[in-house]
């Protein structure tokens, strides 16, 4: 026997009303969202301005703007090619990273795992203070104090390892100053704090039971660091290093003081007193540039901006993907 099923009347859904914001809350909400959007608007405006200013140059010079290696504002038509400066920025950043990463990792390890709390706090503050050092002060220190010392190191490196191309120089009488090697050290000092603080954060979030587990299995401090701590935190550490790289590439004033800018491209002779850095080049030329060359410098700024954005983006992706096992 079939009966027509009786549908029970659908239950009436109640309307949920979010209480209207109080007057104070409304204003708070408005002012915070204005502030938050302001940052986006500012970035967009800067990008727009750079694009607008540099478009004629980029259109006129084409891809050679990035890859060519002549900068001649007096010729007609003007030849503006940024290659050596862009490569120089990368080269110095790489040297900086290579010097800074082991330092920063050691410091983070010391702070998180070795020092008693009070000393750890002091060490953290000191490293952070390094980040607060004005770039121009670092540049002057680099020029007046550090360069004489580091040029001696460079000389020693050259005399023992000169047969490796990166440590060779064309003329050993050059004094070993104003080289990418020295600029790399200066950049290293600037980025040690950021790599240290990211790494410190990653290390301190590590599950202590993992480390204890490794030690309880007969691991030494070193083998535990190498086989457990580093693999577990490598994603975050790489992200921190890339954040440092992003900063190193944009660095201007400090490098300006310690590097000899040259359009003879230096592919990797670190001790040779010639190199490049986009930001420093902008600083060096801006005062005397005419209108069209100024636009070229704007375009250089745009290129730098884009490169930094890409590196920061990659850093963010890596940091976010770093620890998939944390999700459970």
């Amino acid at each position: 026997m079939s009966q027509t099923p009786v549908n029970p009347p659908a239950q009436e859904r109640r309307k949920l009303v979010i209480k209207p914001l109080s007057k104070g809350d409304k204003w708070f909400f408005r002012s915070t969202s204005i502030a938050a959007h302001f940052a986006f608007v500012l970035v967009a405006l800067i990008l727009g301005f750079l694009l607008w200013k540099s478009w004629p140059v980029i259109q006129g010079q084409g891809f050679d703007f990035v890859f060519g290696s002549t900068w001649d504002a007096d010729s007609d038509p003007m030849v503006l090619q940024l290659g050596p400066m862009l490569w120089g920025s990368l080269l110095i950043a790489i040297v900086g990273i290579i010097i800074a990463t082991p330092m920063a990792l050691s410091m983070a390890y010391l702070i998180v795992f070795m020092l008693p709390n009070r000393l750890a706090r002091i060490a953290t503050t000191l490293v952070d203070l390094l980040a607060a050092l004005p770039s121009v002060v670092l540049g002057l220190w680099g020029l007046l104090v550090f360069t004489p010392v580091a040029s001696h190191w460079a000389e020693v490196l050259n005399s023992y390892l000169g047969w490796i191309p990166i440590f060779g120089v064309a003329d050993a009488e050059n004094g070993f100053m104003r080289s990418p090697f020295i600029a790399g050290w200066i950049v290293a000092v600037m980025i040690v704090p950021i790599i240290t603080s990211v790494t410190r954060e990653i290390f301190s979030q590590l599950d202590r039971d993992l480390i204890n587990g490794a030690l309880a299995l007969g691991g030494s401090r070193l083998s535990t660091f190498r086989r457990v701590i580093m693999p577990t935190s490598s994603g975050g550490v790489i992200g921190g290093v890339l954040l440092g790289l992003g900063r190193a590439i944009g660095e201007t004033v400090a490098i300006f003081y310690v590097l000899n800018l040259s359009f003879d491209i230096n592919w990797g002779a670190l001790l040779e007193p010639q190199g490049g850095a986009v930001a420093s080049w902008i600083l060096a030329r801006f005062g005397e540039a005419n209108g069209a060359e100024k636009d070229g410098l704007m375009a250089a700024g745009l290129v730098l901006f884009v490169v930094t954005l890409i590196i920061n983006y990659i850093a963010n992706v890596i940091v976010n993907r770093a620890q998939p096992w944390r999700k459970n």
Partner: protein
Amino acid sequence: MNSLSTASTLSAEDISVWFGERQVLEKVNLTFPANQVTALIGPSGCGKSTFIRTLNRMHELIPGAGLAGAVYLDGEDIYNESTDAVTVRIKVGMVFQKPNPFPTMTIKDNILSGLRLSGRKIENAEELVETSLRRASIWNEVKDRLNDQAISLSGGQQQRLCIARSLAMDPKVLLMDEPCSALDPGSTRRIEETIQELSETMTIVIVTHNMQQAQRVSDQTAFFLADDNTPGGVVEFGSTEQVFNGPIDQRTNDYVNGHFG
């Protein structure tokens, strides 16, 4: 099968422990005979976990940790100046409260991690992996996925993997700090069965808050207690049968019958 070394007798003599100025254990004397399972019971904060960490020299890794007394492993003081902490930890394995497999390693690599961490040669890796996993009764569940990440296992499986990881080092003593507190009853039962089997080849010390568990797995039981603001110590130590069914001390009686704690 690898030839398994015999179990060892472990004994703690007058173990007192400090963290900074604060004393947390006062003159603990306990002997863990070879092939016996000893349960350490007592309310939270009475120093059981601290005590168990003095048995494999994990205690000294805590900043400000202090110690008096001696721990003898087959008659030799593990705190001798000439004795290396790493050698002690290889002989005295440890399983933690929360499963802690290495998340970046596969199941197989987790088993071999102890040998790698202590810089020892790995011979017959395949055989060692199988033997260790079999002894921890998890072989059948993971034999087809030895190269999967260890964290893909369930909590109970992870804990048995951690037991297997310790067994790969062929320890003479196995310390277990509330190994089942994070696990469901099914996993708990399987680990208890494993403990019974393992006691044939090694000496086991287990900290537990579960009275039934202590009765099910252990041969002897030590009851720890710390009165307010005084260091903890052992109130009663004897066969599990005696501690649970005929405790001499009134406080033990109250605790095992659930009157406090």
